[in-house]
């Protein structure tokens, strides 16, 4: 279970309407209204990307009056289907999906089985992407793709679909770069 204790809030007088924060929000919680950024508190996972990119220091972190809890109970869905998605993604169910929130891949697969259709859905359901927002990003995408979901990428630099993994390296590259253990490292990961 991921408990989110904070939220981001815009100081309207400082916001210059540059829109940068809109593009970096992992849950698409920020919209522009009257040329000012507005954050949907219910979607904010307190990752602080918006605070980090704001050149005008117009966004601050505030403690929530009531923390928000995000959790997907993987035990309530079909375990065979979790394994099937993970196998297709070449990700072990017990691998970390998100290091910051200690979320395993099986919870990501369970979120998909419970209706997650986008990386943003996945983040809001599991609480992932509330920390560094980095490492879990392509893991989530790999799971969604493995489930056969076509991921819409609407915002111009919000998120790009580059989910290459060890299993996507062409043989000629494996042969050319022998000192990189490209075949051998597959065994490190996939031990179903």
């Amino acid at each position, binding site marked *: 279970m991921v408990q989110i204790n904070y939220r981001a809030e815009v100081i309207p007088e400082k916001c210059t309407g540059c829109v940068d924060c809109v593009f970096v929000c992992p849950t698409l919680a920020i919209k522009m209204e009257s040329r000012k950024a507005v954050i949907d508190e219910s979607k904010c996972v307190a990752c602080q990307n918006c605070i980090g990119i704001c050149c005008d220091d117009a966004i601050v972190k505030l403690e929530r009056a009531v923390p928000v809890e995000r959790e997907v109970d993987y035990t309530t869905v079909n375990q065979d289907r979790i394994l099937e998605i993970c196998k297709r993604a070449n990700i072990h169910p017990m691998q970390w999906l998100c290091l*910051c929130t200690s979320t395993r891949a099986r919870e990501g697969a369970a979120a998909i089985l419970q209706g997650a259709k986008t990386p943003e859905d996945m983040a809001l359901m599991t609480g992932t992407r509330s920390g560094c927002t980095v490492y879990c990003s392509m893991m989530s995408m790999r799971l969604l793709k493995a489930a056969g979901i076509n991921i819409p990428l609407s915002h111009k630099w919000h998120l790009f679909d580059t989910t290459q993994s060890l299993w996507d390296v062409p043989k000629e590259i494996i042969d050319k*770069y022998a000192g*990189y253990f490209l075949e051998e490292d597959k065994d490190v990961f996939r031990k179903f």
Partner: protein
Amino acid sequence: MSTLAVASLKKARPSYIRKSMYGPATPTGQPEMRASDLPGMVALPVQALFPDIPKAIYVEGDDLAPIRKATAEALANVNMDKIQPDSSVNILTSQYGFMIMGGFAYREMVRTIKEIVEQRTGCTDIRLRIATGFRLKEPEEIIKHYELDKMFNGKVSPALYIDRAVEIDTPIGKLMGIHKIYNADFIIHVHHGELRELDMHRMISRTMKPFSMSYARFETRSVHHMNFGPRSSNLIPRLIFESPFVQKKFTFGVFMAASPQGVVGVEAGNDLMPIDRRLMLLAFKSYGKIRELYNEIKDCVCIIDGSGEPRYMVGGGTTFGNLTEAELDLFDLDTVPISLGFGLYQPPPTQPKLKAVNPAVKALVMNHFWTGVPQMELATACPMILVGDEMHKLVKEDCMNITMADHVVTAQNLPAALRFAKRIAQTDNIIAFDGAYGAITCSEALADHLIKRAPIANQRVEEELMPKWLRQRGFDPSEAL
């Protein structure tokens, strides 16, 4: 070496701590007390333990002239013909360079590069880019602290992993760079040769790593760390570096070469591969021995006491991450770590079982550090004691380790924290990671142990380990002599 007596050791000199919004909000930005001020803590000189580790031309506080001279000499044979008077050039730097020994050596190297490029090419549109790990506001802090805006006439900009993207075609498909890194005709890659995170780079394409980390968007950092393995991940920076897009812009690389002694020189060149090999040899000879010496520590209390994340905090010129995995020989490419980053959860068959943190670390005292990296394994694998309410608040609010506060206790001051840690650990061996190079800040008991064990570590590296490391990377062992 055997003549070194604990009684003759001097007081340690820890590194300067830069004030940061990512550190504990103490009134001064500094801890109330440094680990080196604790009774019985001494500075154990690296030179005395391993006389053949390359000597430093600079340690923190020294005159910067040797850095300037070494940079100028290293650049003398670098071809800058690509750069024309009307070209635009981005000098690419990473935040960690500014954390090494207070950051002024890296700053001086950057300044020297800028001035020499201006002199030799007539180019005036030279900009500075500062990439960062996870602390998005850190480049702004760096620009202000080191007065880089003034140095570059305002042409300075942070480069964040969430900034606008640029697509880079590689043999495994598109990977994503940061637009601000590449938005010039040419780039100059300015990095360091400090060991930092051996568990990640394994001294494979070490010089290229920033191309898939510092200079890359978050998607590509995720691909590097999570989608590839502990050795194969290092292909990602190489593929980006060798891409036509990067090669068209790349001019040369400059590296601040370091050993546990301090800065030992500057390496520069148009071809990164020879530099890669030179830095590799330097790492084997110097960091290899310190790592092996840390493997001789069977129980200790660690005090984290400096600028940056605990894993990258330096003690004896070597990052703490090298003690947390010292029980594994990570220069050995047959060894596969499981503990960090790669999303692994059990050791591969035939590999030694590894706990998330070296079992020799019996307790951790966190006197001062910055947030900015997922590091839950530290708090869950060994007892962690925070020093002071400000440190507790910092950990409680850390979004990258959301439950860490549930696994720690807080002491009111450093002596109290250490007393508690020693009761848990049942040892007098204390080592501080306080940013110091050239000497290990440690207790007299640990100093005595390390003095005795250094010859054994030295012999093991020279006779057994280094030949293996060299063979694995295609070196003739005679090259290392």
